[in-house]
């Protein structure tokens, strides 16, 4: 990738067990969205659920799937919490 941004992913609860890791640092193309990031992760970890089953959080805030990530961002994909979405 000519221009890449490094981001850090953290996994919790069911997704942590499905990914079998707690954290993962990856480089993605500049302009990548949270949906792009999740697609890459599902490629790395086929057991992860489809995008419709989770919400995206960027730097500790819920964020839209079309939000672009930047270098140093913390990205977490959040399965439904105990009371549901």
């Amino acid at each position, binding site marked *: 990738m000519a221009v890449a941004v490094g981001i850090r992913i953290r996994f919790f609860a069911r997704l942590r067990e499905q990914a079998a890791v707690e954290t993962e640092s990856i480089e993605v193309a500049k302009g990548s969205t949270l949906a792009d990031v999740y697609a890459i992760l599902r490629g790395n970890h086929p057991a992860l659920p489809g995008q419709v089953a989770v919400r995206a959080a960027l730097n500790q805030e819920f964020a839209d799937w079309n939000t672009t990530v930047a270098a140093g961002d913390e990205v977490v994909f959040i399965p439904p919490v105990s*009371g549901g979405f």
Partner: protein
Amino acid sequence: MRYDITTGPIDPRELEAAVTHSGAGAICTFSGIVRDNSRGQSVTHLDYEAYAEMAVPQMRKIGQEIKDRWPEARVAMAHRTGHLEIGEVSVVVSVSCPHRAEAFAACRWGIDELKQSVPIWKKEHAADGTHWIEGDEAKPVP
């Protein structure tokens, strides 16, 4: 205002003390308790897991929204993580207001919001195995 994620026991009276003041004529406290059954199965214990760096700010945001809706409210929230036994307190929302109607309403709204938007997950250990509880769904742990 007090917002905690803790691995130790939660005392609802401590949260009430945090919202008590001389103008508060009503305190409404919701305590969530680990119960011994779920989905028709007997439950042995629970494990809660939090994304704490996001959960505490989300709780603070809910507290601020309560203040926007009920300006005289004072709010305290705590959620426990880790291993919990039957009968232990998992979550507490305590709200004080001048009168009971708004204290009930604000407390109800607060726990409902917490259950929807605070990233804390429940893993249930029951007679039929271990499940992540995600809203109305129980996802078995292989």
